[in-house]
């Protein structure tokens, strides 16, 4: 009876939510319980929503280039709240050069434009704690 819960969230000010919404629907169709929290959220709001719903996965989407600041901040806040088992993944317009830094900061995987949604589903299934 333990379903995988995923929070799909857009930190920062970027309003491009096509990708986030498509991913949210695809995850639902893959059998996950998806909480979509909309655009223009602070990392604090995202971390608190993740805690209240005790999600297994936080999926962050950002196209504005602020990922190096905002993604690690979400990870940090989740840890502060004691949410140590959450799988945090990210997607958006993210240059390859930034990916090692994001991974070091606790983003488990980064999905760049053109990624099939099935790949994200597989990653979650293989890595969820």
């Amino acid at each position, binding site marked *: 009876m333990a379903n995988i819960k995923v929070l799909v969230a857009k930190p920062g*000010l970027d309003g491009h*939510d096509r990708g986030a919404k498509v991913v949210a629907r695809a995850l639902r169709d893959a059998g996950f319980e998806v909480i979509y929290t909309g655009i223009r959220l602070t990392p604090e709001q995202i971390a608190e929503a993740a805690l209240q719903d005790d999600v297994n996965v936080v999926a962050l989407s950002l196209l*504005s*280039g602020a990922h190096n600041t905002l993604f690690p901040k979400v990870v940090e806040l989740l840890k502060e709240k004691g949410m140590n088992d959450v799988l945090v993944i990210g997607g958006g317009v993210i*240059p390859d050069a930034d990916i090692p830094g994001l991974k070091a900061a606790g983003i488990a995987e980064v999905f760049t434009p053109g990624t*099939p949604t099935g790949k994200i589903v597989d990653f979650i299934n293989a890595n969820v704690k």
Partner: protein
Amino acid sequence: MANETLKAGFDAYMAKADAASAKFPERANLEPNRLYTPLDIEGFDYEKDLGYPGEYPFTRGVQPTMYRGKFWTMRMYAGFSTAEESNKRYRYLLANGGSGLSCAFDLPTQIGYDSTDPMAEGEVGKVGVAIDSLADMEILFDQISLDKVSTSMTINAPASVLLCMYIAVAKKQGVPSDALRGTIQNDILKEYAARGTYIFPPKPSMRLITNIFEYCSKFVPKWNTISISGYHIREAGSTASQEIAFTIADGIAYVEAAIKAGMDVDAFAGRLSFFWNAHNNVLEEVAKFRASRRVWAKVMKERFGAKKAKSMMLRVHTQTAGSMLTAQQPNNNIVRVALQTAAAVMGGTQSLHTNSKDEALALPTTESVTIALRTQQIVAYESGLADTIDPLGGSYYVEALTNKIEKEAWDYIEKIDELGGAPEAIAKGYIQKEIQDSAYKWQMDIEAGRRIIVGVNKFTQEEEPPKNLLRVDGSVGKLQAEKIAKVKATRDNAAVEAKLAALKAACADENVNLVPLILEAVEAYATEGEICGVMRQVFGEFKAHTAL
């Protein structure tokens, strides 16, 4: 009679080939007939359906001479980091044959936050230039004569503030406001539906828009007061028909609001402009441009009783589709952009921005921007596509497709009318849902292989990560904070307080036009965040609750 003979001949001809062998094996959607003939445009009436360029219903174009008079404005959307950096890029583009400017602002600027606001963290200077006060705007247009250049600004919720900054810079250059040419996007409805940089709730937002219409009709008469945008609706995943239908429905709402505010339709409608996306399917896009002009002309003439031809013309800026750029094999994007450019030009656009090959990865470098600009120049000077007006007019296929897109657009507009108009349809989530459904279908078609994107789901190859991407370094936020501190230390703070208080009081009175008060605050060097801040206090903030 003639058609019956034709029909018999056509049927006999088509029967000769095996139908199955003429079907694309891998493509399930968007499949047109194999061959188009006069049978597909039955009842076609040249004068009624097309007419002449520059004449109702403007199907063939809005000017009588089109590109024989002058080419479209080659207007490259640019802006990043600080005003200093962006000013350099603008001057580079103008020196290389760009014929207009198009300013990209960073997200804090677009949402009315100063660079020092906690909400701006990580975003300063990222997707565009950071503008906090008139001081930044002065630097942005340094050594650019505002009486010579036309400038488009992608700014919506705080459009009034940025327009006032532009007017103020012009004044300092000695250029009167009635000489200024350019466009503000100022299209809040599509922000609620598709783009997300709203600030205030719909009612005060619509008031700001009509205030701008009114102010500009008196003091900035050559300015395009709005760019009613389908571009972002398409980027969010809509179809071609949805793009023009939802956008024209937004346009109807703006016209209604201005009429309700007491303006005569012909006093402002000529300054309304549109913004289309140039997507990958070349002929469908050409048909979309043509259909959109016909629909808008009918809307303005029949629904609003416009008298001036100018009020009925759908003048359009175009941008090639950013969402169609691939991160994989980025050089392929050069080809995509060339085809999209061809579509926009054969569709009769008035101005065009071409995307750069590296924009699925980062903001474009100077080198890639140059290729994008050269693409337009090659299409203009070498391709022959601009040699004659509406070159595809009369093509059986393109005319049939134009009719089809027009019909689909009318069906949507009718549905939106039933829901109570575009603002209500957006409030109900109808438009967002339609767009989302199309976006999801598009993605699932790609994943199922029913839609091929070269280099993404077919003809893929291992690649090295691309090098030489543009990076905006993190110090921009700090630089902007220093500039704001300097402005606040040198301006007359008591005057700023007074101007902001006057603006706040005026916000509460619906009968006051806010633009002159915003201009005074801007000229006193109030920051954008301060100006939007007082409006936030009175108007409140909009929160989107789009369900999936």
